[in-house]
């Protein structure tokens, strides 16, 4: 073993506790080398080991007849019909995006793409769930600008359309924005590539970009809070190269059409370490790496640096030995590095050699099996007192104009106008056209729908209700297009898990999500956990972001939210006027109070299935779920999307105030637009579904029941003002 041995003090600098370092010593039977300590510290980091979250994640349902691979692989895989599988996952790049917004977001997109195409899928769509600090906070504009440019800069160039996502603001994200990137790909269901290595003696092949010093210890950085030294962490952020990623996609897919690949995994967090350790570990084999063969961008890289580098656009593969030459030819055509850097062995150990010296020699089974696993203490989130009556200080029309223009509800066109959503020639519903993005599958009638959802203010007030709501809203958004929801990926963004109240939020959110997943037959097939989202001890709102996937047999059946003149509008689902944690309460009454709206999962399922049946029967011309801002915001968004007015004629039930009726955020509701509501109302009565006729479309103004009219032009001006004036003004 070369170099000086590691010490407990160095281990602490690498993020290992004294107890964890003790385990390292027990496994090794001696002090580890620097490289070995680096390998242990990244593999046992929160980011790679899920040591605080694993025991809770086991509570989530992960199976269904259509699930091909659940959590544990690079991404989740579900059967979607026509012999095809959808492969998808969401992953956070929160910490790097705070330090260096452009590259942090760009490499987030690149990393999630690799998780998907490493399994044999051509990526067809990306989405991004973004949460930023208050618009008034001095750092927010710079972060928004960099993140949006980074997502566009990478996604537009790599050639995968960015078709949806979310953007929200809250002061809790001032020092810790969330950038959660999701990618969906398509592959033949019987041609899925996995990461378990097999075949002693088979070559281990490195392809893609060269290795440099960027991103060393990125996984460890992502597993710690930020202090005032965040700027100093910039060297841990990786730099993205979407052009190389595009070549890597094409080269890998070309190779995957042959029978050369035994196993393949991208080099993501913890780079060469995690890919080699996980591939060999899952396959129950050993691996010997010769780092002299690794393509290097700069001279003088040490073994430690190469094993921990997070240089982007790199993949590790195990090939059939007789296919090595053919594989090399493909990568040479695409002008990418291709290097045999090792062999599989029967030793059950990872042995890393550099310049003729053994730099690391670690038994793989204990590295995985004795990884720390914590059942950290939890403290329940105190329940919020009921809201009681809240007076309306401004009236319905003024509240509508204020809400439709507030940062959390205004038009996101400024953002999505920087993302190429039409690339690929299959985008049926672009951003803003429907509750979920809808893409047809090339050459087929079949289409997929995608969405990302979470309402963190609900989660903060009641993690369990908020967790259930996030899953239910994703299911509802897919349903509103006519799609049958299939499965989700989750991105659990929370604060410091060593604080019982944070672990309590995590556990509560998981309980709510699990209940919703079961009630809606909507299992979790992949996901990512991002903890330590804190700066100087202040945590973010608990944000379990859900990425949902659904399928439509025929793309032509998809409906959007845009109205045309001459339709009748009906709200489906019960409206009681729940103002607790609503945007009306925050924006108009200036309070962030009360419990969030409860989610009745049985009603959610019944109402959603009924709505989807009506859509697929061709009865529905437009559909929009009722979410942030309530019923009147939903109607206004439908009017804006169609550039047509609406005359409202509904009145609140006895005992419900007008502002609670129009802006309450009761769950499980949809606004449907139909040519003639008579049949729909009769069907609802027969099926026991709560429906209420609320008005009709036409003209160029939104007319409230009291006769006050706001022109669609005035609504649009209010809706579209914020982003351009804030960012470019």
């Amino acid at each position, binding site marked *: 073993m070369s170099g000086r041995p590691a010490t407990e003090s160095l281990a602490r600098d690498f993020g290992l506790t004294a107890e964890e370092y003790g385990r390292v010593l027990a496994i090794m039977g001696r002090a580890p080398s620097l490289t070995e300590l680096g390998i242990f510290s990244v593999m046992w980091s929160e980011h790679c080991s899920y040591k605080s979250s694993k025991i809770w994640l086991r509570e989530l349902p992960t199976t269904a007849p259509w699930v091909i691979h659940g959590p544990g692989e690079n991404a989740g895989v579900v059967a979607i019909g026509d012999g095809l599988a959808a492969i998808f996952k969401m992953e956070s790049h929160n910490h790097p995006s705070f330090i260096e917004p452009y590259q942090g977001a760009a490499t987030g997109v690149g990393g999630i793409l690799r998780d998907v195409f490493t399994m044999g899928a051509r990526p067809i769509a990306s989405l991004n769930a973004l949460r930023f600090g208050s618009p008034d906070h001095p750092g927010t504009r710079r972060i928004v600008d960099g993140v949006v*440019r980074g997502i*566009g*800069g990478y996604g*537009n*160039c*790599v*050639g995968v359309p960015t078709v949806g996502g979310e953007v929200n603001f809250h002061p809790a994200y001032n020092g810790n924005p969330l950038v959660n990137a999701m990618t969906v790909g398509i592959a033949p269901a019987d041609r899925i590539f996995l990461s378990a290595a097999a075949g002693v003696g088979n070559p281990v092949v490195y392809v893609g970009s060269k290795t440099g010093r960027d991103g060393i210890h990125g996984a460890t950085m992502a597993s710690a809070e930020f202090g005032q030294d965040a700027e100093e962490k910039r060297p841990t952020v990786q730099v993205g*190269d*979407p*052009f*190389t990623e*595009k*070549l890597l996609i094409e080269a890998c897919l070309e190779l995957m059409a042959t029978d050369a690949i035994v196993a393949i995994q991208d080099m993501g967090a913890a780079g060469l370490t995690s890919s080699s350790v996980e591939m060999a570990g899952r396959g129950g084999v050993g691996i010997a790496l010769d780092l002299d063969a690794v393509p290097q961008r700069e001279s003088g890289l040490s073994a430690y640096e190469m094993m921990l580098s997070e240089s982007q656009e790199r993949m590790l593969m195990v090939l059939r030995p007789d296919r090595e030459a053919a594989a090399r030819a493909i990568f040479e055509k*695409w*002008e990418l590095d291709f290097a045999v850097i090792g062999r599989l062995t029967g030793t059950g150990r990872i042995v890393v050699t550099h310049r003729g010296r053994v730099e690391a020699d670690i038994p793989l089974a204990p590295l995985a099996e004795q990884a720390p696993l914590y059942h950290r203490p939890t403290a329940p989130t105190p329940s919020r007192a009921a809201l009681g009556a809240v007076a309306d200080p401004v009236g319905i029309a003024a509240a509508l104009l204020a809400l439709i223009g507030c940062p959390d509800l205004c038009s996101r*066109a400024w953002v*999505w*106008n*920087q*993302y*190429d*959503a*039409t*690339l*690929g*020639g*299959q*985008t*049926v519903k*672009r951003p803003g056209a429907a509750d979920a993005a809808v893409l*047809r599958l*090339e050459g087929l009638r079949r289409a997929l729908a995608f969405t990302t959802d979470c309402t963190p203010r609900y989660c903060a007030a009641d993690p369990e209700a908020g967790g259930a709501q996030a899953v239910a809203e994703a299911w509802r958004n897919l349903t509103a297009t006519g799609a049958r929801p299939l499965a989700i990926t989750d991105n659990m963004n929370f604060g410091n898990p060593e604080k019982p109240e944070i672990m309590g939020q995590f556990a509560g959110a998981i309980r709510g999500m699990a209940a919703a997943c079961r009630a809606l037959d909507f299992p979790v097939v992949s996901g990512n956990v991002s903890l330590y989202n804190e700066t100087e001890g202040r945590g973010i709102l608990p944000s379990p972001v859900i990425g949902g996937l659904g399928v439509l047999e025929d*793309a*032509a059946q998809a409906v959007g939210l845009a109205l045309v003149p001459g339709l009748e509008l009906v709200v489906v689902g019960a409206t009681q006027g729940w103002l607790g944690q609503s945007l009306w309460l925050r924006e108009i009454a200036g309070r962030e109070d009360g419990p969030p709206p409860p989610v009745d999962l049985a009603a959610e399922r019944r109402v959603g299935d009924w709505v989807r049946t009506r859509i697929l029967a061709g009865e529905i011309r437009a559909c929009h779920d009722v979410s942030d801002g309530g019923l009147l915001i939903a109607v206004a968004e439908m009017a804006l999307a169609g550039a047509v007015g609406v005359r409202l004629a509904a009145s609140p039930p006895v005992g419900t105030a007008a502002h609670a009726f129009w802006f309450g955020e009761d769950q499980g509701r949809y606004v449907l637009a139909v040519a003639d509501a008579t049949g729909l109302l009769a069907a609802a009565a027969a099926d026991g579904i709560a429906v209420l006729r609320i008005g009709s479309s036409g003209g160029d103004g939104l007319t409230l029941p009291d006769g006050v009219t706001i022109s669609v032009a005035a609504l649009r001006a209010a809706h579209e003002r914020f982003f351009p004036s804030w960012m*470019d003004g």
Partner: protein
Amino acid sequence: MRAGIVVFPGINRERDMAIALARSTGRQPRMIWHAETDLAGLDLVVLPGGFSHGDYLRCGAMAARSPVMAAVRAHAERGGYVLGVCNGFQILTEAGLLPGALLRNASLRFLAMDCHLRVERSDTAFTCRYQRGQVFRAPMAHGDGNYFADPETLDRLEGEGLVAFRYATPSGEPTAEANRNGSARSIAGVLSPDLRTLGVMPHPEDMVDPLLGGEDGKPLFDALAELAA
């Protein structure tokens, strides 16, 4: 009509283009790797959109020096048809097959949205299925679509009728607001003097299907389908 699509490393709209061509012509175009040099038998060569070589030097600058480009030049000199869309338009200007250059958008931001194009002449092989003055919709998706040429070149293009399309309002007015990327004289598409090479920034190939937002771009491909074999 036999069409080929050149695939440079980093190109990403070649499939969109193939779908649009196949929809109008009824046959699959040939995919041509940028290192190939034999374009024999093709009536139309298309340089599609994307980020050839990552756009890392100047958009299209490296692709313009690819082995295939000498063959594209010879094809054009033989009177063959050439269509360059987005990055393809940038490559044609970098190769000197069309005048001018595409600069960074005036807003300094990537622009991905539908725009409206006014057809400036309808007597070309590309535009004969449109009426002169007709406005059609197409998505744009570019960071560098701001057409630039010196005043003499712009005057010559106008004088010789080589402006194919201008950015306009839905009613056909070439206003500053409709010209989002800041192109000189709202120019969105340029023809060669023999009217056989066309460069255009927006993507008519992504507007050929009613399910995907309309068929505004289809007349361009229907026109190309009629090219004599």
